[in-house]
């Protein structure tokens, strides 16, 4: 689901796999077409109360039934208008905790469906989104009758989309969550099995659902299997086993680049507090609808200003910092802060069929304010992105910019230059002002007390 849409009927480009229905856009809102082939399943999910109880529990995206008003939807069994999502995010942008919550939600929903003799026929991580800070299932057509299958058809998909990346992140490295970007239908289990340490064979849940599963897939790769139906109670036992395994997975302590950033800065407490107040003042002046906090770390400044914007997307490259932010959002029941793993120097691209199934982050969210606090020196010096290119990037995406200039004499910049040749002759306040003045007007600039740094509030030049 993208953030923009034309005013007439248009099928959502990423919705083409499921014969049960499809998503379409009309007048800027997204709708779900329920095909005649899904009539029995839709009726059962409605009549049994499965939809209602799942929505009530916050597990399923609420929807309302609307009339078909276009010729393209005349054959529909039903047209659903789901609650509209503010920003769509993808599993390769989630931290460990976010992916784990999405996995837990998927299994809980499957278990709830089994009580009504239904099941989840899909267990794609893309069917989960974060709504009001909580994982929420968005595909209303993923439920099917147990009698249509006999077995859980999504068992393999669940293990590829959730179990494999969670196990790799927990046992090896948190950054392996990014593998989901490479494998669109989940990480193949033989790949995950060969990457995981041998000691994971001693963990019974992983040994069965992942390692042995990978072997069984290989063994039966070209076999015709006669399926013996399982009762809902046996299907529940399988899902319970996966749920217990997922709940037990947790990352081993991993030293991260930025996880303890605010305990390792050259700021005094007073300077940090002063900076917080300056940022707050600037945000209040802009009164933005959507903020991107790029290089947000654990979201310290996003949380400081969260009452003054409808949505804040926090982006950071560090999985542990994003997880800290997510845990804080959950703990404080924050609804408008969305922590994401994202690298501004290599943002999520368009992937999948025609590169349009999963869109670049920039096409899913349009900020009116970008906050780049204590970030520019990292991008310019550590990633060699010149001031000018960065200024052009920000100006192309946002009307307002709050940016922190960190001089070369700052100890954090000196640390970045410690083991490399200083080839950054243009890195000066004059160079910074000159590059940004091509695209922005400075509305306000405030030195941060007890530091050498300056905060700028800028507005894009009108063209």
């Amino acid at each position, binding site marked *: 689901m993208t953030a923009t849409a034309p005013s007439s009927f248009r099928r959502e480009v990423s919705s083409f796999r499921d014969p049960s229905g499809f998503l379409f856009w009309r007048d800027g809102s997204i709708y779900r077409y329920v095909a005649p082939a899904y009539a029995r399943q839709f009726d059962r999910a409605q009549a049994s109360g499965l939809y209602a109880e799942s929505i009530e529990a916050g597990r399923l995206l609420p929807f309302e039934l609307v009339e078909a008003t276009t010729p393209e939807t005349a054959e529909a069994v039903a047209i659903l208008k789901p609650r509209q999502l503010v920003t769509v995010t993808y599993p390769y942008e989630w931290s460990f905790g976010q992916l784990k919550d999405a996995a837990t939600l998927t299994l809980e929903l499957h278990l709830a469906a089994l009580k009504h003799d239904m099941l989840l026929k899909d267990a794609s991580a893309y069917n989960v989104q974060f709504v009001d800070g909580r994982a929420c299932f968005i595909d209303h057509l993923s439920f099917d009758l147990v009698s249509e299958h006999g077995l859980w*058809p999504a068992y393999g998909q669940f293990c590829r989309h959730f179990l494999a990346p969670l196990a790799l992140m927990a046992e090896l490295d948190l950054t392996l969550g990014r593998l989901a970007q490479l494998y669109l239908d989940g990480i193949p289990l033989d790949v995950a099995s060969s990457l995981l340490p041998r000691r994971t064979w001693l963990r019974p849940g992983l040994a069965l659902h992942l390692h042995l599963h990978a072997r069984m897939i290989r063994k039966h790769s*070209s076999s015709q299997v006669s399926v013996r139906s399982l009762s809902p109670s046996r299907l529940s036992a399988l899902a319970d086993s996966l749920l217990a395994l997922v709940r037990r997975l947790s990352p081993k302590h991993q030293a991260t680049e930025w996880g303890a950033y605010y305990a390792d800065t050259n700021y005094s407490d007073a300077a940090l507090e002063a900076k917080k107040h300056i940022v707050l003042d600037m945000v209040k002046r802009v009164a933005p609808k959507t903020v991107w906090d790029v290089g947000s770390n654990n979201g310290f400044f996003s949380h400081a200003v969260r009452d003054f914007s409808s949505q804040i997307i926090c982006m950071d490259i560090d999985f542990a910092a994003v997880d800290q932010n997510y845990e804080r959002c959950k703990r404080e029941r924050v609804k408008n802060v969305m922590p994401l793993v994202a690298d501004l120097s290599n943002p999520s691209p368009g992937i999948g069929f025609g590169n349009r199934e999963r869109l670049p982050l920039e096409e899913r969210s349009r900020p009116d304010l970008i906050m780049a606090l204590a970030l520019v020196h990292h991008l310019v010096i550590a990633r060699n992105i010149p001031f000018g290119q960065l200024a052009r990037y920000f100006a192309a995406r946002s009307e307002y910019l709050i940016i922190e200039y960190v001089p070369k004499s700052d100890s954090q910049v000196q640390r970045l230059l410690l083991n490399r040749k200083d080839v950054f002759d243009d890195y000066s306040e004059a160079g910074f002002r000159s590059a940004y003045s091509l695209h922005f007007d400075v509305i306000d600039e405030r030195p941060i007390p007890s530091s050498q740094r300056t905060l700028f509030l800028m507005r894009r030049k009108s063209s």
Partner: protein
Amino acid sequence: MGFRLFAIFIAILAMTNTAHAYIDPGAGSFVLQMMLAGALAVGATVKVFWYRIKEGMRRILPGRQRVQDDPK
């Protein structure tokens, strides 16, 4: 729980053999869950009985009375 899963794992491992190059993800997942689901359901039943036996023992043994959730 852990020992039960491990025993199932050893039994199923003994039944697997060599790999094939072409991979159809469906069939292997079906075979495995047919093997697992039955064993896990039996395990869950055993667990319920074991829990009941433990509860019974607690009631019988003096000084280890279980606190009732609903003391009517």
